[in-house]
């Protein structure tokens, strides 16, 4: 009996009129947890009842505490007939079970009814007296923290990253039970909502148990999904990464802990060191690179129809890790035992699934990236033997995971990062997909095994053999700090993890354009975020490949086979499109790649989104050349040359737009024979001396091989068409689908999260693939255009974490949903080479409004002239003129010295400006608290004091710009159903969905506020199902949202002195105008 749940019902407000005669309501409340129910008194004749009830106490098992939601029902008392329900509130009490999260839930929560929507609000108080059960055989896992955030949460430090956890629960879908024929839609919806709450709770508890078993205390990158399989059931499944986290004391943080929590923008991290620890490029990979024929960095999709088992050709080499099959139960204990048995082998090798759902990592975690690995499989839901049991689905996912694992092996990698799983269901066909990024990890956070020391040993000799003094300095420092302060190199992750003689796919390898010592591929595709330490030229941008393929209507196996056959082509074409669009933007790598394939009855939709980036370490992309196969007549030639010209123009324009202007230096290196390490470092040095002269743009594409598109091919025509129809973004806008936008750091605090949904009806059924493609592509483009228009007031602005989801809800419908956050940034403060001019970005003066723009411009001009490090050739400059820059301890002081004069200038400037308008807060010197920062904080404290509703920010990102997250309050995971049988009266489909989404946002905000939070980070809308029946005037919608409730504090409100030494700039806006 380890828990006592206490609930108090305080009051209600804005209740609907339930008694037409009196225009009033006699409300009372039903409080239910598990099988126990309490009731308040009836508060007669009021729309704003004050119950002020006693404390209702539930004594329950902690298992129930985790599984069950608290259910509060508000009813209208009726003397003569049955009491009418006004609405319900489900409260997930999980956040109260963890000592570090929230302690009380208190506030106004919307009362929700699945037919009428929000109907007033109720004020409740919920507390838990919790006695932790230390019983080894317990079934509960209270205290394990859950985070949706796919990086180490910002006020924690990762002590250990244990690895992959997964779980899956199945239940009958109430909507498909026989009883549904006789009960009301409301009852059916409520049964469904409650069931999903229960299943999520159970799932979380079970995952928590696995985490405890692995020795962890938290799940990061927790991703929970629903599969509405229809007749065969309702599946709730989740994956995540088990970690051991340690809270960083937030107040006086002069401690030596690494600032993984410091601040969102990467410029606040420590500066990049010119030369870095070389990593373990050749000696560390898995011992035997496999000679597997996989194409490109993409793995071909495996399509299984129901009966054929997974005996595909290329995968016969799939290494078996000893614990091949077996149910979920077997898996749980597997990894640990194996580890004990085989201590001599790498910890990762022994994991059943060395997968990580994280997308950004603490320094030293990620060493090399191989490329994207993905696997798909087509299943038939009506062939599940035991639909109510999870075994079949477990086996399906296991198959897919094994395949992913083997793909990673083929790329010479021992781990998969940024891993995610998804499904698409249409009738009885289900496509299961998984994708991730094959990679090699550093040993630091990985299970401490003997491998750890192996790495160290192998590392030292290698490093010293290079003989370069600078490297020596670097290693010395890192060694002395016991690996704590090793920043991963800005290029290291690009270096190929596989053996160059046994390249798993055709790729052109060159020496790294950054360090010149290791091989890199010509393009790099990944599903992870851009590592903060990566060296990037220019800005990034969203790149999308869209594809629509018709499919014949079919049933059962035939259908599954047809889909299976289409999938590889779909993926291939998406890949080609991505590649072309990437080149068109003059970029060479993709981050955050997410490919969604959605199946409908008569078509397949494919949407690939990623953020294109020019990695300095990778070669610049070749140009796109168009070639006609039969150069017969002149007009044709002309046509081709026209197109060629258009493409070239676009490339040039894009390069300018995204500021992709890589230094030309690279050319001299290409032809040179592979130098020995010593020679290489010497070469680099000589290069750095002459670097100042080479600053022209590389527009010629020089000797690089052009990418040839043959125009005779109809596909190519289509490709070119797709390339050129992508309309450019309006000026002032940037977009990406990753956490951070490369090249932009100076965010304002104005953020606007939004969701936009469009459904498109294809009226003429007989469309060609091309026609469909165009429609689909236009749909996405128009949606983006609308977004730009809507958000024009935020210019200059970047749409971050643009997440598109496509679905085929009905035969001729295409649904596209977008969730993203628009964030403004300060334009005139954009530091073009932010990353490279390391110390320049340490200081920032930020203006709020136009009045101060003048000052800023001035400042910028000054900084570039006075700052010795502001040259575009940051790399060579840093290493050349400041050799100490690579030794962190020395480094900071020297930076500080150089910066201090600069700060003085800033401060002088600041004082001449009107009261508090400039916030130059620097914490480089701990002893210099800035008066501005202090005084501002007082002014801007409670900008919303006037309104009684807490402003809750929501963002799909893991941070709030200009603010510091001080506490994580727990995970928010909510599922809502809304149904109407008066669609026209509610404003048609758009009115209905608009209201519903607004209601969902409102409920999420209210629950965050009740936990004591003021923001929801890592927000995502995982499911947005919409079904309509206009003839019956009906519609139904299901939405699932999740995120992490947090408390944030504006950085300006923190004491300037308490900011960590490495982080510097703070910013804020003083008035409430930004209220998001």
């Amino acid at each position, binding site marked *: 009996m380890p828990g006592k749940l206490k609930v108090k019902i305080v009051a209600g*407000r*804005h209740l609907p009129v339930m008694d037409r005669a009196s225009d009033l309501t006699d409300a009372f409340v039903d409080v239910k947890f598990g099988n126990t129910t309490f009731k308040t008194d009836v508060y007669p004749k009021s729309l704003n009842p004050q119950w002020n009830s006693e404390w209702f106490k539930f004594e329950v098992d902690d298992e129930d505490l985790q599984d069950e939601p608290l259910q509060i029902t508000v009813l209208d008392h009726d003397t003569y007939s049955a009491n009418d329900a006004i609405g319900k509130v489900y409260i997930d009490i999980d956040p109260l079970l963890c000592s570090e999260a929230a302690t009380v839930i208190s506030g*106004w929560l*919307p009362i929700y009814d699945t037919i009428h929507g*929000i109907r007033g*609000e109720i004020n409740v108080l919920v507390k838990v007296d919790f006695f932790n059960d230390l019983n080894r055989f317990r079934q509960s896992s209270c205290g394990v923290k859950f985070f949706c955030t796919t990086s180490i949460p910002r006020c924690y430090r990762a002590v250990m990253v244990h690895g992959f956890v997964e779980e899956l629960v199945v239940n009958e879908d109430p909507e498909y039970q026989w009883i549904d024929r006789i009960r009301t839609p409301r009852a059916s919806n409520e049964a469904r909502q409650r069931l999903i709450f229960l299943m999520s709770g159970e799932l979380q508890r079970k995952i928590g148990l696995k985490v405890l078993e692995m020795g962890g205390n938290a799940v990061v990158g927790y991703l929970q999904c629903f599969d509405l399989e229809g007749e065969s059931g309702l599946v709730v499944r989740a994956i995540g990464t088990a970690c051991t986290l340690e809270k960083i004391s937030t107040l006086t943080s002069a401690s030596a802990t690494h600032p993984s929590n410091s601040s969102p923008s990467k410029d606040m991290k420590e500066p990049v060191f010119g030369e870095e620890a070389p990593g373990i490029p050749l000696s560390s990979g898995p011992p035997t690179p496999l000679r597997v024929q996989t194409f490109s960095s993409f793995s071909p999709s495996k399509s299984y129809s129901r009966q054929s088992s997974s005996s595909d050709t290329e995968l016969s080499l799939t290494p078996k890790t000893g614990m091949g099959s077996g149910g979920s139960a077997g898996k749980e204990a597997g990894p640990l035992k194996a580890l004990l048995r085989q201590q001599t082998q790498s910890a990762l090798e022994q994991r059943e699934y060395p997968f990580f759902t994280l997308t950004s990592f603490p320094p030293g975690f990620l060493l090399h990236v191989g490329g994207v690995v993905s696997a798909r499989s087509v299943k038939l839901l009506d062939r599940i033997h035991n639909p109510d049991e999870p075994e079949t689905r477990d086996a399906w996912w296991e198959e897919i995971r094994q395949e992913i694992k083997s793909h990673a092996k083929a790329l010479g990698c021992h781990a998969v990062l940024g891993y995610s799983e998804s499904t698409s269901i249409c009738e009885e066909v289900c496509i299961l997909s998984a994708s991730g990024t094959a990679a090699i990890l550093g040993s630091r956070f990985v299970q401490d095994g003997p491998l750890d020391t192996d790495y160290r040993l192998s590392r030292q000799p290698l490093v010293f053999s290079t003989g370069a003094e600078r490297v020596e300095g670097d290693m010395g420092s890192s060694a002395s700090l016991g690996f704590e302060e090793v920043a991963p190199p800005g290029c290291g992750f690009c270096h190929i993890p596989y053996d160059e003689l046994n390249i798993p796919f055709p790729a052109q390898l060159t020496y790294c354009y950054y360090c010149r010592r290791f091989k890199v591929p010509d393009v790099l595709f990944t599903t992870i975020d851009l590592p903060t330490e990566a060296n990037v030229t220019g800005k990034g941008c969203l790149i999308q490949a869209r594809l629509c393929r018709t499919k014949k209507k079919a049933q059962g196996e035939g259908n599954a086979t047809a889909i299976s056959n289409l999938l590889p082509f779909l993926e291939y074409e998406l890949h080609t499109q991505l590649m072309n669009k990437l080149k068109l933007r003059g970029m060479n790598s993709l981050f955050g790649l997410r490919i969604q394939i959605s199946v409908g009855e008569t078509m397949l939709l494919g949407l690939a989104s990623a953020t294109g980036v020019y990695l300095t370490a990778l070669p610049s992309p070749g140009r796109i050349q168009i070639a006609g196969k039969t150069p017969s007549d002149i007009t044709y030639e002309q046509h081709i040359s026209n197109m060629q010209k258009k493409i070239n123009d676009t490339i040039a324009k894009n390069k300018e737009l995204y500021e992709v202007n890589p230094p030309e230096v690279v050319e001299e290196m290409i032809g040179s024979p592979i130098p020995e390490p010593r020679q290489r470092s010497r070469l680099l040095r000589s290069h750095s001396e002459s670097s100042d002269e080479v600053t022209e743009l590389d527009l010629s594409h020089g000797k690089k091989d052009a990418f040839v598109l043959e125009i005779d091919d109809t596909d190519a025509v289509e490709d070119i068409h797709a390339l050129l129809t992508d309309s450019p973004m*309006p000026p002032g806008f940037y977009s990406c689908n990753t956490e951070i936008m490369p090249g932009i750091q100076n965010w304002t605090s104005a953020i*606007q*999260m*939004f*969701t*936009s*949904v*469009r*459904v*498109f*009806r*294809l*009226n*003429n059924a007989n469309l060609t693939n091309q026609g469909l493609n165009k429609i689909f592509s236009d749909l996405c483009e*128009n949606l983006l*255009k*609308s*977004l*730009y*228009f*809507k*958000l*024009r007031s935020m210019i200059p602005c970047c749409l971050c974490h643009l997440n598109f989801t496509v679905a085929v809800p009905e035969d001729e*419908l295409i*649904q596209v949903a977008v969730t993203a956050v628009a964030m403004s940034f300060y334009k005139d403060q954009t530091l073009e080479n932010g990353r490279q001019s390391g110390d320049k970005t340490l200081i920032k003066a930020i203006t709020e409004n136009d009045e101060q723009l003048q000052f800023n411009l001035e400042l910028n001009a000054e900084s570039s002239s006075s700052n010795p490090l502001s040259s575009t050739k940051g790399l060579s400059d840093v290493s050349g003129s400041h050799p100490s820059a690579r030794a962190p301890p020395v480094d900071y002081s020297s930076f500080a010295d150089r910066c201090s004069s600069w700060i003085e200038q800033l401060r002088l400037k600041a004082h001449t400006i009107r009261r508090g308008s400039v916030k130059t807060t620097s914490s480089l010197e701990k002893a210099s608290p800035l008066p501005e920062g202090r005084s501002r904080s007082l002014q801007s404290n409670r900008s*919303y004091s*006037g*309104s*009684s*509703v807490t*402003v*809750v*920010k*929501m963002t799909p990102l893991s941070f709030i710009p200009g603010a510091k997250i001080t506490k994580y309050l727990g995970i928010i995971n909510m599922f809502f159903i809304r149904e109407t049988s008066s669609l026209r009266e509610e*404003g048609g*489909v*758009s*009115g209905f*969905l*608009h*209201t519903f*989404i*607004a209601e969902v*946002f*409102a*409920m999420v*905000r*209210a629950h965050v506020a009740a936990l004591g939070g003021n923001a929801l980070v890592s927000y995502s809308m995982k499911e947005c199902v*919409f079904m309509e029946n206009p003839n019956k005037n009906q519609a139904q919608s299901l939405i699932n949202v999740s995120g992490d409730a947090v408390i944030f504090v504006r950085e300006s409100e923190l004491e300037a002195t308490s900011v960590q030494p490495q982080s510097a700039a703070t910013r804020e806006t003083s008035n*409430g*105008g*930004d*209220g*998001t």
Partner: protein
Amino acid sequence: MSVELDVFVGNTTIMDKEVFQLWLNGYTVSDAVKVRIEGGIMEECEANAEVLLSDTMDQYRTFQMCERLLHHPAKLSNQLLFQIPPDRQAMLIERYYAFDDAFVREVLGKKLSKGTKKDLDDVSAKTGIMLKSCRRQFDNFKRVFKVVEELKGPLVENIQQHFLLPDQLGRDYAAIVFFASNRFETGKKKLQYLTFQDFAFCAGQLINHWTVGAVDNMMDDMDVDLDKEFLQDLKDLKILITDKDLLDQHKSLVCTALRGKTNVFNEMEANFKNLSRSLVNIAAKLINAKDVRDFFIDLVEKFIEPCRSDRWTSIDVNLYLTHYTNSAHILDTFKHHGVWTRYMGVIKSCILRIYH
């Protein structure tokens, strides 16, 4: 091929001021799109008509969803459905409750009833204000009227508190409510030259000086009704015109004071008895509700028009009324100084305001 569904929901509700105004003005979506296109927004933002249509529809839908909250502005600040920054909320309320002077002139003093609402299409045709907008404005008047009708305490403050309106707008609504509840006649042809602001000023004077609330804030009833006791007392002023001696005495006092100070002295002297009779008669009749309605028409017909035909300047009127008021206090047999001051103070400022 058609867009079946198109929604955009922001965590902070995005509302475009310009579109909001178009919506308030009663434009349909397609008309609003036309207006926006003409405004040149497409070139400015690189948008196309499709984008504009989608945005306008979306905004209109948002406004419709917000409208029921705007009916009770206090709810807007503590509702949870839309996250709207306070300055935006204030803007929405102010603009929603703003009205056209041309429209308000048409309904000022009329009963805010269903009958009046039915006639709004005529008003719309006459003023050129769209019917939709007329209805909104009318409903606003009616809503404010209904809420404050039942409330105790000062009218302006009540309105400002319940509808979170800015100062000036609150006063204007107080005038509208006051006129509606006393049913002052404002539509006669002779009154057409008066603007709403003229009437609003007079209403302010009446509210501040002639209502129950004007003398005693603690009174149960409030600013909407004129002080019955005071109206009763006004009858006593009749002595000024019924007592021949008093009238002559009053006349000579005023004329002595005015002599040489104005170009229209002769006309003043000649008209004194007429004018005095008019003003006192207006006062004496105010006890009848029907005559209260004719208050403004009486002022214009009985005082302003004679003065105007004699070409008095407003300085002359001011001079005349000042001395007319003050001289009465010197009359030995006249005892009703309190009532006289309270009456003439308002009459004087009202006449001065509407004398143009």
